[in-house]
């Protein structure tokens, strides 16, 4: 016997008969969001970069031109791009090196309470304010900060000063050196690297590692030929975060490091103080292009084969 269904019941029945309708309704809001707000603004940005600014009036001229890109190609601007890309690459490599062992431990060995502790340890830094963390690091890295203090206690101050004297990486203190910028970037983005690698390693059955050893592979060979290829999708996912976040960040280089500018800072200044929105847009296009290239290369190299 069937009873007469209520309104909600009739709705459910209707969806059961037309499952595609339900799927469509569920996907409509995210598609609108992604399609119009996200891609739309990205397209607007892209369009802006093909306009130029009138040097005298400072008004944006709405005609298509490559002038802004020519301006972007000036040595001073290329310098900013190169510095940012190099920093992003170094931060990414360092993040992988630090994150991998942590992720491996969490995926293979941590159980129960330790696993919970791991997630807490990886996530808590994400909960606290980004600015608070960056300013905390400013204190840690300052001349009288804890790192300087530790070096002094260990009678290693000359070592630190010797390092800070190296041009290109050093400075007056760690907090105003490119090294300081690098350390803080690695710290701030590390969770975004740990979690995807851990997720990838979690899906590698321990028997695969044993099988590699059983077939004669030393631990180093097992890492190269089994663990690394299987973790690579996670590493690439993590590096998308660390790389693109570093490419776009404008706060850390402002607070910690030299006055040398990064892409994010350039975007911030050109569209804010300088009012040169087309150049800011052109700068903002750079990370998008770089990430596109990066993902293409990663795909070519088979980074997603194990997905």
């Amino acid at each position, binding site marked *: 016997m069937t009873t007469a269904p209520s309104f909600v019941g009739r709705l459910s029945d209707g969806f059961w008969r037309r499952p595609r309708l339900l799927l469509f309704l569920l996907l409509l809001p995210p598609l609108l969001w992604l399609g119009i707000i996200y891609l739309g603004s990205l397209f607007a940005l892209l369009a802006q970069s093909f306009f130029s600014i009138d040097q005298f009036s400072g008004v944006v001229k709405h005609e298509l031109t490559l002038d802004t890109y020519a301006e972007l190609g000036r040595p001073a601007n290329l310098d900013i791009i190169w510095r940012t890309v190099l920093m992003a690459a170094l931060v990414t490599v360092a993040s992988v090196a630090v994150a991998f062992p942590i992720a491996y431990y969490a995926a293979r060995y941590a159980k129960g309470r330790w696993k919970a502790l791991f997630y807490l340890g990886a996530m808590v830094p994400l909960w606290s304010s980004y600015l608070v963390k960056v300013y905390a690091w400013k204190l840690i890295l300052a001349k009288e900060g804890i790192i300087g203090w530790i070096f002094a206690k260990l009678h290693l101050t000359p070592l630190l000063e010797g390092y800070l004297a190296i041009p290109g990486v050093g400075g007056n203190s760690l907090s105003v050196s490119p090294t300081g910028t690098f350390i803080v970037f690695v710290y701030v983005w590390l969770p975004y690297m740990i979690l995807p690698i851990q997720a990838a390693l979690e899906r590698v*059955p321990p028997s*695969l590692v044993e099988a*590699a050893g*059983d*077939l*004669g592979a030393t631990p180093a060979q097992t890492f190269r030929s089994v663990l690394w290829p*299987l973790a690579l999708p996670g590493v690439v996912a993590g590096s998308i975060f660390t790389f693109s976040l570093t490419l776009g960040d404008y706060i850390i280089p402002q607070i910690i490091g030299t006055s040398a500018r990064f892409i994010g800072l350039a975007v911030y200044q050109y569209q804010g103080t300088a009012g040169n929105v087309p150049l800011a847009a052109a700068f903002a296009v750079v990370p998008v292009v770089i990430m596109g290239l990066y993902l293409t290369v990663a795909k070519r190299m088979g980074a997603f084969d194990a997905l």
Partner: protein
Amino acid sequence: MTAAVAFENVARHFGSVRAVDGVTLDIAPGEFFAMLGPSGSGKTTCLRLIAGFEQPSSGSVRLFGEDVSQVPPWRRPVNTVFQDYALFPHLNVIDNVAFGLKIAGQGRAERTRAAEAALEMVALPGYGARKPAQLSGGQRQRVALARALVNKPRVLLLDEPLGALDLKLREAMQEELRGLQRNLGITFVFVTHDQGEALSMADRVAVFNDGRIVQVGRPEDIYYRPAVPFVADFVGSSNVLPAALTGQGRPGAVRPEAVRIVAEGGVPATVTAVSFLGAATRVTAEAAGTRLTALLPCGAARPAVGDSVRLGWDAADLHLMGAA
């Protein structure tokens, strides 16, 4: 002759759990040896001790006379077929099979040829380009076998390799494994919880319980002359009789086909179930709290459920066992 695998009073403890608790064992070269036991009995840990995935807490493991207790897996002359096959998902079948040869430094052409020959041996020629995910369970099992055998191990370890296969495939693979072992002359050490598999395939069987070996012997010994009630109970359909029922102060085992309904003597029992099997009738009865099964030939008088009967057997059919 030096044993292929020798355990000398080996123990492996995990915290307070004694997974393996004082095992002494010799496996001869070229032998097909089965480790049989329920889950948690220590048989798989023993296999992992041979492979080197576990180190003994005490005692020593020898391979062909050499103490390998301190030797890591990648330097042992053994290869393993894993229960879940452990095929590398990112490599195709050929690269999976050739993995050990690549590690050993063989050139691509040479190792590809060897891998293809190994695939031929396990009846999977032409499957080299596929990924493990594109294979059926039985095919994966063969690839795992080829991947281990291509390295020409001196001992092949098999951890429940047929567990995930359906019955028909399992029976076919049992015969194939047996034939392969005979042709290659490699020592096979085979872990299983399936007594039928162990008895039908192995030259010798070790029955494990609670981290110890309770009996080692040829399949016939294990089947017809179980040393202790546990073996009789685990391995066969034998009736396990407590000492009170044998009247000899020791527990015993008697095969169902040897049990008869007798007019006098024997033990009093109450029939609890009767089922007609065609060639015989199976009668289940309870005698002093022990369940006994008798297979009566057709033509014999059939009791009814609830009947009080006396069950007897020839003294020669009663196999006496140790108490433990």
